[in-house]
Protein backbone atom coordinates (compact mmCIF):
# COMPACT_ATOMS: atom_id res chain seq x y z
CA UNK A 1 0.00 0.00 0.00
CA UNK A 2 1.31 3.42 -0.98
CA UNK A 3 0.11 6.65 0.49
CA UNK A 4 0.53 10.20 -0.73
CA UNK A 5 -0.67 13.30 1.10
CA UNK A 6 -1.88 15.85 -1.44
CA UNK A 7 -2.83 19.55 -1.34
CA UNK A 8 -0.95 20.31 1.86
CA UNK A 9 -1.26 22.09 4.20
CA UNK A 10 -4.65 23.83 4.40
CA UNK A 11 -6.92 21.30 2.70
CA UNK A 12 -4.92 18.10 2.70
CA UNK A 13 -6.22 14.87 1.27
CA UNK A 14 -4.60 11.45 1.15
CA UNK A 15 -4.44 9.06 -1.78
CA UNK A 16 -3.99 5.43 -0.85
CA UNK A 17 -2.93 3.11 -3.67
CA UNK A 18 -3.15 -0.62 -3.09
CA UNK A 19 -0.28 -2.82 -4.29
CA UNK A 20 -2.01 -6.20 -4.06
CA UNK A 21 -5.51 -7.60 -3.96
CA UNK A 22 -6.59 -8.28 -0.41
CA UNK A 23 -4.84 -5.27 1.07
CA UNK A 24 -7.21 -3.35 3.29
CA UNK A 25 -7.49 0.10 4.79
CA UNK A 26 -9.68 1.05 7.72
CA UNK A 27 -11.01 4.63 7.72
CA UNK A 28 -13.27 6.77 9.87
CA UNK A 29 -16.81 6.81 8.43
CA UNK A 30 -17.49 9.79 6.19
CA UNK A 31 -13.90 10.41 5.14
CA UNK A 32 -13.99 8.78 1.69
CA UNK A 33 -13.76 11.26 -1.17
CA UNK A 34 -13.65 8.82 -4.08
CA UNK A 35 -12.48 5.34 -5.02
CA UNK A 36 -11.94 3.07 -7.97
CA UNK A 37 -14.85 0.73 -8.54
CA UNK A 38 -12.70 -2.34 -7.88
CA UNK A 39 -12.08 -1.17 -4.32
CA UNK A 40 -14.70 -2.77 -2.13
CA UNK A 41 -16.12 -0.85 0.78
CA UNK A 42 -17.56 -2.57 3.79
CA UNK A 43 -19.06 -0.72 6.70
CA UNK A 44 -18.41 -2.53 9.88
CA UNK A 45 -18.04 -2.43 13.55
CA UNK A 46 -14.33 -2.82 13.79
CA UNK A 47 -13.35 -5.46 16.33
CA UNK A 48 -16.98 -6.48 16.87
CA UNK A 49 -19.85 -4.77 18.59
CA UNK A 50 -18.32 -4.55 22.05
CA UNK A 51 -15.03 -3.04 20.98
CA UNK A 52 -16.90 -0.57 18.78
CA UNK A 53 -19.33 0.40 21.50
CA UNK A 54 -16.40 0.97 23.83
CA UNK A 55 -14.76 3.19 21.24
CA UNK A 56 -17.94 5.15 20.63
CA UNK A 57 -18.70 5.57 24.31
CA UNK A 58 -15.17 6.23 25.44
CA UNK A 59 -13.41 7.58 22.42
CA UNK A 60 -16.13 9.63 20.83
CA UNK A 61 -15.00 8.77 17.32
CA UNK A 62 -17.36 7.23 14.82
CA UNK A 63 -18.80 3.88 15.75
CA UNK A 64 -18.50 2.83 12.15
CA UNK A 65 -15.23 2.37 10.44
CA UNK A 66 -15.23 1.63 6.74
CA UNK A 67 -12.90 -1.02 5.43
CA UNK A 68 -11.65 -0.58 1.88
CA UNK A 69 -10.29 -3.75 0.33
CA UNK A 70 -8.45 -3.97 -2.98
CA UNK A 71 -9.46 -6.55 -5.55
CA UNK A 72 -7.03 -5.33 -8.23
CA UNK A 73 -3.50 -3.97 -7.87
CA UNK A 74 -2.81 -0.28 -8.49
CA UNK A 75 -6.27 1.02 -7.66
CA UNK A 76 -6.82 3.68 -5.09
CA UNK A 77 -9.04 5.49 -2.63
CA UNK A 78 -8.94 9.17 -1.64
CA UNK A 79 -9.71 10.21 1.93
CA UNK A 80 -10.18 13.63 3.54
CA UNK A 81 -11.01 14.72 7.09
CA UNK A 82 -13.97 16.99 7.90
CA UNK A 83 -12.22 20.17 9.02
CA UNK A 84 -9.73 22.33 7.16
CA UNK A 85 -6.20 21.30 7.99
CA UNK A 86 -3.36 18.92 7.39
CA UNK A 87 -2.93 15.16 7.18
CA UNK A 88 0.14 13.27 8.34
CA UNK A 89 1.18 9.69 7.87
CA UNK A 90 3.02 7.51 10.38
CA UNK A 91 4.43 4.03 10.36
CA UNK A 92 3.89 2.03 13.50
CA UNK A 93 5.81 -1.13 14.20
CA UNK A 94 6.18 -3.37 17.25
CA UNK A 95 7.66 -1.26 20.04
CA UNK A 96 6.76 1.98 18.23
CA UNK A 97 3.10 2.58 18.88
CA UNK A 98 1.31 5.86 18.41
CA UNK A 99 -1.27 7.47 20.69
CA UNK A 100 -3.90 9.39 18.71
CA UNK A 101 -6.49 11.85 19.98
CA UNK A 102 -9.83 10.19 19.21
CA UNK A 103 -10.95 13.01 16.93
CA UNK A 104 -7.75 13.02 14.88
CA UNK A 105 -7.79 9.46 13.56
CA UNK A 106 -8.28 9.29 9.80
CA UNK A 107 -7.28 5.81 8.64
CA UNK A 108 -4.91 2.92 9.13
CA UNK A 109 -3.77 -0.22 7.41
CA UNK A 110 -5.81 -3.22 8.51
CA UNK A 111 -2.66 -4.74 10.05
CA UNK A 112 -2.71 -1.96 12.67
CA UNK A 113 -4.63 -2.66 15.86
CA UNK A 114 -6.62 0.20 17.39
CA UNK A 115 -7.30 0.21 21.09
CA UNK A 116 -9.22 2.84 23.04
CA UNK A 117 -7.49 4.32 26.05
CA UNK A 118 -8.93 6.76 28.47
CA UNK A 119 -6.51 9.55 29.24
CA UNK A 120 -7.96 10.01 32.70
CA UNK A 121 -8.52 13.23 34.57
CA UNK A 122 -7.20 14.59 37.80
CA UNK A 123 -9.49 16.49 40.10
CA UNK A 124 -13.23 16.26 40.30
CA UNK A 125 -13.95 17.24 36.73
CA UNK A 126 -14.67 14.00 34.99
CA UNK A 127 -14.02 15.10 31.46
CA UNK A 128 -10.92 13.25 30.44
CA UNK A 129 -9.26 12.71 27.16
CA UNK A 130 -9.79 9.75 24.89
CA UNK A 131 -6.98 8.27 22.93
CA UNK A 132 -6.60 5.53 20.39
CA UNK A 133 -3.50 3.43 20.68
CA UNK A 134 -2.33 2.34 17.23
CA UNK A 135 -0.06 -0.68 17.50
CA UNK A 136 1.12 -3.53 15.37
CA UNK A 137 2.68 -2.82 12.01
CA UNK A 138 1.54 -0.56 9.24
CA UNK A 139 0.59 2.94 8.18
CA UNK A 140 -1.60 5.28 10.21
CA UNK A 141 -2.99 8.60 9.01
CA UNK A 142 -4.10 11.41 11.28
CA UNK A 143 -5.61 14.82 10.58
CA UNK A 144 -5.30 18.22 12.23
CA UNK A 145 -7.61 21.22 12.54
CA UNK A 146 -5.28 23.96 11.37
CA UNK A 147 -1.60 23.18 10.95
CA UNK A 148 0.20 20.21 12.39
CA UNK A 149 3.07 21.23 14.65
CA UNK A 150 5.61 18.74 16.04
CA UNK A 151 7.19 19.29 19.45
CA UNK A 152 10.17 17.23 20.58
CA UNK A 153 9.76 16.56 24.26
CA UNK A 154 12.85 16.15 26.40
CA UNK A 155 13.54 16.04 30.12
CA UNK A 156 11.65 19.19 31.12
CA UNK A 157 8.35 17.94 29.71
CA UNK A 158 5.57 19.85 27.97
CA UNK A 159 1.99 20.94 28.61
CA UNK A 160 -0.61 20.91 25.81
CA UNK A 161 -4.28 21.86 25.80
CA UNK A 162 -6.24 18.59 25.41
CA UNK A 163 -8.09 19.98 22.42
CA UNK A 164 -4.85 20.77 20.59
CA UNK A 165 -3.41 17.25 20.86
CA UNK A 166 -3.29 15.24 17.62
CA UNK A 167 -0.94 12.38 18.41
CA UNK A 168 2.18 11.46 20.38
CA UNK A 169 4.71 8.68 20.51
CA UNK A 170 3.82 5.91 22.90
CA UNK A 171 6.92 6.27 25.08
CA UNK A 172 5.74 9.58 26.55
CA UNK A 173 4.12 9.59 29.95
CA UNK A 174 1.01 11.73 30.08
CA UNK A 175 -1.34 12.97 32.72
CA UNK A 176 -4.48 15.05 32.29
CA UNK A 177 -4.51 17.98 34.68
CA UNK A 178 -6.25 21.21 35.27
CA UNK A 179 -4.22 24.27 34.54
CA UNK A 180 -3.08 26.67 37.26
CA UNK A 181 -5.25 26.99 40.35
CA UNK A 182 -8.98 26.41 40.66
CA UNK A 183 -9.62 29.96 39.47
CA UNK A 184 -7.68 29.28 36.30
CA UNK A 185 -9.53 26.04 35.69
CA UNK A 186 -12.92 27.71 35.90
CA UNK A 187 -12.16 31.07 34.38
CA UNK A 188 -9.06 30.90 32.22
CA UNK A 189 -10.82 29.37 29.26
CA UNK A 190 -7.97 26.91 28.97
CA UNK A 191 -9.81 23.86 30.28
CA UNK A 192 -7.84 20.70 30.80
CA UNK A 193 -4.31 20.19 29.69
CA UNK A 194 -2.14 17.18 29.21
CA UNK A 195 1.19 17.13 31.00
CA UNK A 196 3.81 15.12 29.09
CA UNK A 197 7.01 13.73 30.49
CA UNK A 198 9.80 11.58 29.19
CA UNK A 199 11.22 11.62 25.69
CA UNK A 200 9.25 11.55 22.52
CA UNK A 201 7.34 13.63 20.03
CA UNK A 202 3.99 15.32 20.23
CA UNK A 203 2.01 16.70 17.27
CA UNK A 204 -0.26 19.62 18.07
CA UNK A 205 -2.94 21.23 15.92
CA UNK A 206 -2.95 25.02 15.74
CA UNK A 207 -6.73 25.39 16.02
CA UNK A 208 -9.12 24.18 18.71
CA UNK A 209 -12.48 22.75 17.56
CA UNK A 210 -14.33 23.43 20.84
CA UNK A 211 -13.14 27.00 20.85
CA UNK A 212 -14.50 27.46 17.33
CA UNK A 213 -17.84 25.87 18.31
CA UNK A 214 -18.05 28.26 21.27
CA UNK A 215 -17.36 31.14 18.90
CA UNK A 216 -20.20 30.13 16.54
CA UNK A 217 -22.75 29.48 19.29
CA UNK A 218 -23.79 33.12 19.99
CA UNK A 219 -24.59 33.59 16.29
CA UNK A 220 -27.40 31.04 16.48
CA UNK A 221 -30.89 32.51 16.61
CA UNK A 222 -32.56 32.39 19.99
CA UNK A 223 -35.66 30.22 20.18
CA UNK A 224 -38.61 32.45 20.92
CA UNK A 225 -40.67 31.31 23.89
CA UNK A 226 -43.98 32.64 22.57
CA UNK A 227 -43.85 30.62 19.35
CA UNK A 228 -44.78 27.49 21.22
CA UNK A 229 -41.67 25.60 20.23
CA UNK A 230 -40.53 23.48 23.12
Amino acid at each position, binding site marked *: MQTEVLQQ*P*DFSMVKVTFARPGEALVATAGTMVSRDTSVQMKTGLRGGLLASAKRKLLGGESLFLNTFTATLPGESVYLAPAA*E*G*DVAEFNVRPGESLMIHSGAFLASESTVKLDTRWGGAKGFFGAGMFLLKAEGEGKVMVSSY*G*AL*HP*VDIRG*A*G*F*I*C*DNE*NIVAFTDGLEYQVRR*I*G*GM*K*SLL*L*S*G*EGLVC*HFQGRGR*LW*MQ*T*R*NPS*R*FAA*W*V*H*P*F*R*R*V*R*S*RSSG*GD
Partner: protein
Amino acid sequence: MQIDLQHRPSAAMAHVVLASGESLMAESGAMVGMTPNVAIQTGSGGLMKGLKRLFGGESFFRNTFTAEGGTPGELYLAATLPGDLVVLDVGPRGYFLQSHAYVASSTAVDVDTRVGGFKTFFAGEGLFVLKTRGQGQLIAGAFGAIEEVQVRGEYIVDTGHLVAWEDSLQFRIAKAADGWIASWLSGEGLVCHFSGNGTLWMQTRNPSEYGQQLGRRLPPRES
Protein backbone atom coordinates in the same frame (compact mmCIF):
# COMPACT_ATOMS: atom_id res chain seq x y z
CA MET B 1 10.62 38.06 24.59
CA GLN B 2 11.08 36.43 21.23
CA ILE B 3 8.04 35.87 19.05
CA ASP B 4 8.16 33.66 16.00
CA LEU B 5 5.07 33.25 13.82
CA GLN B 6 4.65 29.78 12.32
CA HIS B 7 2.23 28.12 9.89
CA ARG B 8 1.31 31.41 8.31
CA PRO B 9 -0.95 32.49 6.85
CA SER B 10 -3.98 30.21 7.23
CA ALA B 11 -3.24 28.38 10.45
CA ALA B 12 -0.84 30.82 12.11
CA MET B 13 0.48 30.13 15.58
CA ALA B 14 2.89 32.21 17.67
CA HIS B 15 5.88 30.60 19.36
CA VAL B 16 6.94 32.82 22.24
CA VAL B 17 10.16 32.42 24.22
CA LEU B 18 9.92 34.18 27.58
CA ALA B 19 13.15 35.05 29.40
CA SER B 20 13.26 33.94 33.01
CA GLY B 21 10.81 36.06 35.00
CA GLU B 22 9.27 37.59 31.90
CA SER B 23 5.47 37.67 31.57
CA LEU B 24 2.93 37.75 28.79
CA MET B 25 -0.78 38.46 28.96
CA ALA B 26 -3.02 36.46 26.61
CA GLU B 27 -6.65 36.25 25.63
CA SER B 28 -8.57 33.51 27.39
CA GLY B 29 -8.20 30.18 25.58
CA ALA B 30 -5.27 31.24 23.37
CA MET B 31 -2.73 28.83 24.90
CA VAL B 32 -2.02 25.80 22.70
CA GLY B 33 0.98 24.43 24.60
CA MET B 34 3.82 25.45 26.87
CA THR B 35 6.80 24.24 28.84
CA PRO B 36 5.98 23.26 32.44
CA ASN B 37 8.05 26.10 33.94
CA VAL B 38 5.51 28.62 32.65
CA ALA B 39 3.05 29.57 35.39
CA ILE B 40 -0.46 30.68 34.51
CA GLN B 41 -2.39 33.21 36.53
CA THR B 42 -5.97 34.19 35.77
CA GLY B 43 -7.20 37.67 36.57
CA SER B 44 -9.22 40.58 35.31
CA GLY B 45 -6.63 43.27 36.09
CA GLY B 46 -9.31 45.10 38.07
CA LEU B 47 -13.09 44.87 37.97
CA MET B 48 -13.56 47.88 35.69
CA LYS B 49 -11.01 46.66 33.15
CA GLY B 50 -12.65 43.25 33.15
CA LEU B 51 -16.13 44.70 32.72
CA LYS B 52 -15.01 46.95 29.91
CA ARG B 53 -13.51 43.98 28.13
CA LEU B 54 -16.66 41.95 28.67
CA PHE B 55 -18.67 44.82 27.24
CA GLY B 56 -16.39 44.89 24.24
CA GLY B 57 -17.05 41.24 23.47
CA GLU B 58 -13.81 39.95 24.90
CA SER B 59 -13.46 37.75 27.93
CA PHE B 60 -13.65 39.17 31.44
CA PHE B 61 -10.54 37.31 32.44
CA ARG B 62 -7.15 37.22 30.87
CA ASN B 63 -4.29 34.91 31.61
CA THR B 64 -0.80 35.95 32.54
CA PHE B 65 1.96 33.50 31.68
CA THR B 66 5.29 33.85 33.50
CA ALA B 67 8.55 31.91 32.99
CA GLU B 68 9.62 30.67 36.40
CA GLY B 69 12.44 28.66 37.91
CA GLY B 70 15.32 30.69 36.46
CA THR B 71 15.00 29.28 32.95
CA PRO B 72 13.39 30.58 29.77
CA GLY B 73 9.86 29.40 29.08
CA GLU B 74 8.20 28.53 25.80
CA LEU B 75 4.60 29.18 24.93
CA TYR B 76 2.48 28.52 21.82
CA LEU B 77 -0.52 30.78 21.19
CA ALA B 78 -3.22 30.76 18.53
CA ALA B 79 -6.46 32.53 17.70
CA THR B 80 -9.86 30.86 17.29
CA LEU B 81 -10.56 31.46 13.61
CA PRO B 82 -8.44 30.41 10.64
CA GLY B 83 -6.06 33.16 9.64
CA ASP B 84 -2.86 35.05 10.08
CA LEU B 85 -1.16 36.80 12.99
CA VAL B 86 0.86 40.02 13.13
CA VAL B 87 3.36 41.20 15.76
CA LEU B 88 3.29 44.92 16.58
CA ASP B 89 6.15 46.69 18.34
CA VAL B 90 4.54 48.98 20.87
CA GLY B 91 6.66 51.87 22.13
CA PRO B 92 8.06 53.59 19.07
CA ARG B 93 4.39 54.11 18.29
CA GLY B 94 1.07 53.22 19.81
CA TYR B 95 -1.72 51.24 18.17
CA PHE B 96 -5.44 50.84 18.16
CA LEU B 97 -6.86 47.35 17.79
CA GLN B 98 -10.31 46.14 16.90
CA SER B 99 -11.05 44.37 20.21
CA HIS B 100 -11.53 40.84 18.82
CA ALA B 101 -8.10 40.96 17.19
CA TYR B 102 -6.26 40.85 20.50
CA VAL B 103 -4.29 37.65 21.12
CA ALA B 104 -1.48 38.51 23.54
CA SER B 105 0.91 41.23 24.70
CA SER B 106 3.93 41.82 26.95
CA THR B 107 2.81 42.80 30.43
CA ALA B 108 4.68 46.11 29.96
CA VAL B 109 2.09 47.00 27.33
CA ASP B 110 -1.04 48.50 28.79
CA VAL B 111 -4.13 47.63 26.75
CA ASP B 112 -7.18 49.75 27.46
CA THR B 113 -10.70 49.16 26.09
CA ARG B 114 -12.52 52.14 24.60
CA VAL B 115 -15.70 52.72 22.71
CA GLY B 116 -15.01 54.05 19.25
CA GLY B 117 -17.84 56.22 17.97
CA PHE B 118 -20.02 56.95 20.94
CA LYS B 119 -23.08 57.96 18.90
CA THR B 120 -23.09 54.86 16.73
CA PHE B 121 -22.70 52.73 19.81
CA PHE B 122 -25.99 53.94 21.25
CA ALA B 123 -27.60 53.59 17.85
CA GLY B 124 -27.23 49.85 18.22
CA GLU B 125 -23.81 48.95 16.97
CA GLY B 126 -20.55 49.98 18.44
CA LEU B 127 -16.96 49.36 17.79
CA PHE B 128 -14.79 48.57 20.72
CA VAL B 129 -11.20 49.43 20.23
CA LEU B 130 -8.15 48.73 22.32
CA LYS B 131 -5.52 51.38 22.79
CA THR B 132 -1.96 50.39 23.61
CA ARG B 133 0.43 52.28 25.84
CA GLY B 134 3.83 51.39 27.23
CA GLN B 135 6.55 49.41 25.56
CA GLY B 136 6.74 45.85 24.34
CA GLN B 137 5.18 43.54 21.80
CA LEU B 138 1.62 42.70 20.94
CA ILE B 139 0.22 39.85 18.86
CA ALA B 140 -2.94 40.52 16.85
CA GLY B 141 -4.94 37.87 15.03
CA ALA B 142 -6.92 38.11 11.82
CA PHE B 143 -9.74 36.13 10.25
CA GLY B 144 -8.23 35.31 6.87
CA ALA B 145 -5.13 36.99 5.52
CA ILE B 146 -3.74 40.34 6.57
CA GLU B 147 -3.47 43.20 4.09
CA GLU B 148 -1.33 46.16 5.11
CA VAL B 149 -2.40 49.60 3.88
CA GLN B 150 -0.40 52.84 4.05
CA VAL B 151 -2.86 55.66 4.61
CA ARG B 152 -1.89 59.07 3.25
CA GLY B 153 -4.77 61.46 3.67
CA GLU B 154 -8.11 59.76 4.00
CA TYR B 155 -9.34 56.17 3.85
CA ILE B 156 -12.46 54.14 4.69
CA VAL B 157 -12.50 50.56 6.05
CA ASP B 158 -15.46 48.37 7.03
CA THR B 159 -15.22 47.89 10.80
CA GLY B 160 -15.55 44.11 10.40
CA HIS B 161 -12.34 44.03 8.38
CA LEU B 162 -10.22 46.04 10.80
CA VAL B 163 -7.36 44.45 12.70
CA ALA B 164 -5.18 47.32 13.93
CA TRP B 165 -3.88 50.77 13.03
CA GLU B 166 -1.19 53.16 14.16
CA ASP B 167 -2.32 55.83 16.58
CA SER B 168 -0.94 58.52 14.28
CA LEU B 169 -4.20 58.02 12.36
CA GLN B 170 -7.33 59.89 13.37
CA PHE B 171 -10.48 57.82 13.10
CA ARG B 172 -14.21 58.09 13.47
CA ILE B 173 -16.94 55.47 13.11
CA ALA B 174 -19.78 56.22 10.74
CA LYS B 175 -22.58 54.60 8.78
CA ALA B 176 -21.48 53.12 5.46
CA ALA B 177 -24.10 55.01 3.46
CA ASP B 178 -25.88 58.30 4.02
CA GLY B 179 -29.06 57.11 5.68
CA TRP B 180 -29.49 54.34 8.21
CA ILE B 181 -31.74 52.34 5.90
CA ALA B 182 -29.42 52.67 2.92
CA SER B 183 -26.55 51.80 5.19
CA TRP B 184 -28.30 48.70 6.43
CA LEU B 185 -29.36 47.63 2.93
CA SER B 186 -25.87 48.09 1.58
CA GLY B 187 -24.76 45.30 3.90
CA GLU B 188 -21.79 47.32 4.96
CA GLY B 189 -23.05 48.49 8.35
CA LEU B 190 -20.39 50.60 9.96
CA VAL B 191 -17.20 51.91 8.53
CA CYS B 192 -14.19 53.60 10.02
CA HIS B 193 -13.05 56.87 8.46
CA PHE B 194 -9.32 57.37 8.81
CA SER B 195 -7.33 60.51 8.23
CA GLY B 196 -3.67 61.34 8.54
CA ASN B 197 -0.60 59.29 7.79
CA GLY B 198 0.03 55.81 9.10
CA THR B 199 -0.27 52.07 8.58
CA LEU B 200 -3.37 49.99 9.06
CA TRP B 201 -3.90 46.24 8.90
CA MET B 202 -7.07 44.75 7.45
CA GLN B 203 -8.34 41.17 7.60
CA THR B 204 -9.61 39.66 4.37
CA ARG B 205 -12.66 38.07 6.05
CA ASN B 206 -15.29 39.61 8.29
CA PRO B 207 -15.97 37.44 11.38
CA SER B 208 -19.51 38.66 12.08
CA GLU B 209 -20.57 38.17 8.45
CA TYR B 210 -19.32 34.61 8.66
CA GLY B 211 -20.94 34.06 12.05
CA GLN B 212 -24.28 35.33 10.77
CA GLN B 213 -24.13 33.09 7.70
CA LEU B 214 -23.49 30.09 9.92
CA GLY B 215 -25.90 31.13 12.64
CA ARG B 216 -28.99 31.35 10.48
CA ARG B 217 -28.34 27.83 9.18
CA LEU B 218 -28.10 26.38 12.68
CA PRO B 219 -31.07 25.36 14.82
CA PRO B 220 -32.11 28.05 17.32
CA ARG B 221 -30.56 27.91 20.74
CA GLU B 222 -32.24 28.28 24.09
CA SER B 223 -31.67 31.79 25.38
